[in-house]
């Protein structure tokens, strides 16, 4: 884990990480307690006010990254069932990138992308991924995976004292489990026990920062902060071949994330209770399951659906990388 980049230089990620080495946690413990209490109050009141089938610990309301993003875009989209989407090249690119980063962090450079991704699919018993990879020709796979393997070199040179972890869970459990906001963090560094400040990195397989990426980043900051009772000093988005986009964390950004989550809980409770969803057409109509019957749909949905979009997977708001939501 202390290997330098293949050319011996400091990698872009290691440079960003070391740049935060002396940062102190930017939010006080009291502030975090206040945020948790506010969210607990909203969740408990909302769940208690639900008529009929209110949420329970067995069947909680799940208000995670995907659902919050969808609620911001279009309430009707948020109410659709998009779980269990099949693997597409776009999704596989995201999964491959996650695996290649783990490979780079723990055993070194990815030298045979298709073969090594297949090995990681086997080791993780990801049979869907295995089948997908088998269905592709070698040349096509190389074309898809080689740039991602090369981009993962940006993760070389991380000092082991940062205790890198990948695909970690961060969940906020409210109202005795009746309301849950769960997230899966791509990479965590530092934090409690490590003697280093806490850093969070979200890996994006597309390029370019979108406006809603900040909301996503700060939701993760909030979930990690309330899990650890220690706020990360920064959350970053990393794109293959690009720089690390830094989102500094402060009390105000966490307050805004908590307010957004609270609004999301309330809105979701209203929709579950039967309030007709507001339709807010936009680019997301392209992948909305209701597009063929929604009176507000505005775009041509006959082309460029998510299943055959090879590049713009991350432009599908709220997808967690495997087609699961909430």
């Amino acid at each position: 884990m202390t290997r330098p980049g293949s050319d011996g230089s400091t990698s872009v990620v290691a440079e960003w990480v070391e740049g935060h080495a002396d940062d102190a946690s930017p939010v006080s413990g009291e502030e975090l307690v206040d945020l948790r209490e506010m969210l607990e109050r909203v969740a408990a009141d909302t769940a208690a006010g639900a008529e009929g089938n209110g949420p329970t610990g067995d069947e909680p309301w799940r208000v995670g990254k995907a659902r919050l993003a969808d609620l911001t875009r279009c309430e009707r989209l948020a109410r659709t069932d998009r779980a269990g989407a099949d693997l597409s090249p776009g999704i596989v690119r995201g999964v491959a990138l996650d695996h290649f980063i783990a490979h780079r962090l723990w055993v070194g450079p990815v030298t045979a992308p298709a073969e090594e991704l297949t090995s990681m699919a086997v080791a993780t018993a990801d049979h869907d991924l295995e089948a997908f990879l088998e269905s592709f020709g070698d040349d096509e796979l190389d074309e898809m995976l080689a740039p991602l393997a090369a981009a993962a070199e940006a993760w070389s040179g991380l000092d082991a004292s940062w205790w890198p972890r990948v695909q970690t869970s961060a969940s906020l459990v409210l109202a005795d489990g009746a309301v849950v906001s769960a997230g899966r963090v791509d990479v965590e560094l530092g934090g409690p026990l490590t003697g280093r400040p806490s850093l969070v990195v979200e890996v994006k397989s597309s390029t370019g920062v979108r406006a809603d990426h900040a909301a996503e980043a700060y939701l993760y900051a909030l979930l990690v902060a309330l899990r650890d009772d220690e706020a990360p000093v920064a959350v970053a988005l990393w794109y293959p071949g690009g720089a690390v986009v830094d989102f500094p964390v402060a009390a105000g950004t966490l307050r805004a994330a908590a307010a957004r989550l609270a609004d999301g809980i309330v809105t979701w409770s209203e929709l579950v209770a039967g309030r007709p969803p507001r339709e807010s057409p936009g680019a997301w109509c392209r992948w909305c399951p209701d597009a063929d019957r929604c009176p507000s749909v505005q775009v041509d949905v006959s082309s460029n659906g998510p299943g055959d979009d090879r590049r713009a997977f991350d432009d599908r708001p709220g997808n967690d990388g495997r087609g699961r939501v909430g």
Partner: protein
Amino acid sequence: MSGERAALVIEARTRLLAALDDEVGDRLVHPGGKVDMYADGCVVRPWDLLERCPARVARPVDDFEESARNVARRLGRLTLRRWTPPQAIGDAVEDLMSDREDWPRGLREWFDGLDRAGVAAVRASTTSWAVGAARAVRGRPTRWVDRTMNVDVPGRLIRLAAGWDAQDAGRPTALLVMSDAVSSNRSRLIAGFSALACGLLTQTAPERVVVASAASGRSTRVVVDDGLLSLTVDRVVDVVTHRIEPDLAPTQPGRWCDDCHLLSSCEDGLAALGEA
């Protein structure tokens, strides 16, 4: 105090055996000698007690295979047994994977079959689990177990595959279970299952079980008393009863039907999803 803890176990054991006599009768009686509990018996696991649909309890999915995710907990515990702060846990994982002498044989054989990329996947998942667990106990001295604790019910072909992960080093009568169960009710069942199994194994009931979630960073402390053990015994007997008479197990349709392995043949589940 120790007499009270022993009495709790005697009471729970008596209740369990009597209920099994009533519900199971002469089925699942241990014939004596060596048996394959997995082939011929009934193995109850913690999550069986949390299952909401009795039909799923009766016919559990049988698709277990080793994977980086499945082994993370076992290897994570072995890592934490060796780990001494302030060592980086990632380094402790690396040490563990270099020296596999104390690994269970099947796990070692599986790992030995992995190539470099497979090893990366296992190191990644194990490190994440171990750091999450260490963080959840907030550095408190903890004696991590080195294997899944299997406890067989006396005289029966029934095994409790208990899931406690550790004991408090300063208070061995306190167990720790790592679980992301979200509600206090579910945490109680998880705690009760480990308490019952541990009690049957050691003849004394633990004082408490802490159910800690790495995902939420929160812990639930469950006191082990007669109420908890009775609740757990009743749930265990329910599971065994459904397993021996699977056709009699009712369905409980819900959100979980969507990914249920029984869905294609379950009318209630299909109806609940609007697919009947």
